[in-house]
């Protein structure tokens, strides 16, 4: 039997979460896995907290990850890594983009962005991989490639070869392919 897994992608609407989850899904499908992905559209997208569930295995029934069952979480915004804590367990691996986007209550000065919010993960001994997707994106010369850098970091944990991932990137990234591939490879270094 093939391994199975649950990947949670979370962040803020507009961060490229859907494309990142789509690329990951294609890589798994190309590697012979069944997969299902659940997204949220409509009102929930307007700058709000956004989450996508991706599940893979021999045969996937439910499109939703149960609480406590996420093997991986990819957080595009730092605080969002903690919002979905109930989906994690002590063996989860969390990839966190060290990028702060102030939610309305913080932007208007009513609340403050919590200091050292990731201690909520580390004090529970959850493996946490910090990276700065935007620094990588800037370095490779394509500011929109931060999401692909995060996929790169995730990719080292998945039963997918990097050749397959690169094939998928070639097929699915319409512009600045070389920069995206560079971002992907840089992202891999975070977790290798």
């Amino acid at each position, binding site marked *: 039997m093939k391994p199975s897994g649950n990947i949670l992608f979370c962040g*803020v*609407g507009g961060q490229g979460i859907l494309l990142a989850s789509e690329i990951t*899904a*294609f890589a798994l*499908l*190309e*590697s*012979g*896995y*069944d*997969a*299902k*992905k*659940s*997204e*949220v*559209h*409509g*009102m*929930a*997208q*307007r*700058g*709000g*907290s956004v989450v996508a569930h991706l599940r893979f295995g021999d045969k*996937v*029934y*439910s*499109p*939703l990850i*149960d*609480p*406590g*069952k996420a093997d991986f979480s990819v957080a595009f915004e730092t*605080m*969002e890594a*903690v*919002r979905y*804590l*109930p989906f*994690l*367990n002590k063996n989860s691996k969390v990839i966190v983009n060290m990028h702060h986007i*102030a*939610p*309305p*209550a*913080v*932007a*208007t*000065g*009513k*609340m*403050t*962005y*919590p200091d050292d*919010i990731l201690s*909520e993960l580390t004090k*529970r001994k959850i493996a946490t991989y910090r990276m700065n997707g935007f620094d990588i994106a800037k370095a490779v010369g394509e500011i929109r490639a931060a999401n692909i850098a995060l996929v790169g970091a995730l990719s080292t944990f998945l039963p997918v070869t990097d050749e397959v991932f690169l094939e998928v990137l070639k097929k699915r990234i319409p512009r600045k392919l070389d920069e995206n591939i560079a971002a992907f490879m840089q992202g891999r270094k975070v977790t290798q």
Partner: protein
Amino acid sequence: MTQVSSENMQWLSGNEAIARAAWEAGVTVASGYPGTPSTEILENLSKYNDVYTEWAPNEKVGLEVGLGASFAGARVLVTMKHVGLNVAADPLFTASYTGVRGGIVIINADDPEMHSSQNEQDNRNYAFAAKLPMLEPSDPAEARLMLKKAFEISEQFDTPVILRTTTRVAHVKGMVETGERQLGPIPVEIVKIPEKFVMLPGNARIRRKVIAERQEKLANFVESYEGNRIEWGDKKRGFITGGISYLYVKEAFPDASVLKIGSTWPLPFDMIRDFASQVEELIVVEELDPFLETHIKAHGIPCIGKEKIPAIGELNSFIIKKALGEDTGEIYAPVEIPPRPPNMCPGCPHRGLFYSLSKYDVFISGDIGCYTLGFLPPLSAMDSCICMGASIGVAHGMEKALGENGKGKTVAVIGDSTFLHSGITGLTNMVYNKSASTVIILDNRITAMTGHQPNPASGSTLMGEPANSIAFEELCRALGVKHIRTVNPHEIDTCIKVLKEEIERPEPSVIIARAPCVLIPEERKRKKTPLTSSLDKCTGCTACIRIGCPAISWVPITPEEGVKLGKKKKQKGYSRISEDLCNGCGQCRTLCKFDAIAEAEGK
């Protein structure tokens, strides 16, 4: 190895699979109104050749268009969200009487958990009430198969068919087998069959008996329909379930016996009775109402249902296991962090209008769209929101109840698409019955919340053709409104002034706040100059912060830091504009009394 997007296997969402299936089934006419989670069906179908697709102004019109096309013999798809079927309920119930010529399928997308809706009504009840067959797929692949079957059922049994999805079918992606297009069997021509199409009482009474006969035939048909099937396993527990709940049950109890219901109405009662007799404990798992449970019990079959399975919100396999007393292990409790609700975009024209409106002590009845977010702090400028078009009737009714005290106290806020959907009749009533309320039409040229669909005021169609653009000024004048003002909502000073004049006016008036949504393609392409705030000049007065723009954030400082920055001791912080997010709408600049906001240099 699975081939992604090979000849006949594609990775599709439920909505994409439905569009594909409609094309394969030979649909030639499709209509509907956008609504999450149904919108992407027509958007995708419009990309296929040989299908006429359109956005109707509302769901009732969409279904009526569908009926006309069906009477002509075409295969027809009509799409809407759950609350849209309320709007289309009038033609729906009588379409059950007329039946069809070409097959017609109504896609009804429910939204349990209310991800993007004002209620979570369970529209399976409509199938029972309107005496119409309803099918429910569990995933995208099954949605395709069921839709194609639904067209056959529609023509074979002379009935509209409802295909019900929920958010976790519509917006879930999975692998879908695809096939070729095959046209429907009915010739497309004018055929006059008055005894079938003219529902006067004399004809309708006869058709009522036809419905009864049809229901009997359908009840027999579903006993052997392949969408209903038993998957035998351990017979200690038998589950009856359908739609998305089937997948949650399979995930939670892979070894249990399951009767999967594909035809939610009518139900295969012989199959259910047989299944019930062979399992020790019969459990019905369904989201929302006890629909299956109620009808199964009414047929004298005892079962466990809503006394254990929650009737509110979405289910998942965790909830089902927990409800049935299974061990689900320890789960981390949520950590309290600042909430992140959705917000209007930077540069959204609605923000300027709501900010202006928040200056007045009035009851603001709101409506359905992006602008419903005007309710959230810091704007907090909405006092009611019911359904599409309700804002105008609510404002009028409140004013009538308040009598003289209500003059100048009620304002309705409604978007362009929502006004055309069902606001015109409300405004007609206001004029006719002598209201003094003010109606604000937020005209951003597009149906924004659902993802930028054109509407009858946008100047283009779903198929990308140029079209008439309704002039709201002329429309309102024709309805009898004498005071019509048009403002640019980004110009806050003007908005505040015009609002005052029209709110105080003891007659109905309409303010059209017109500026395009920042996300429509033309606006995205337009070169914009972002603004920046001067740290030297900012006094920390928070005037710009109070419009709640995502591009502006408050940076708190300590008194020591303040002194270092050359600020007065009492200044608690300053505002910072993100040049990456700002699109230069200038609303905040109007509000700054210290000239601290200016165009960013070198941009």
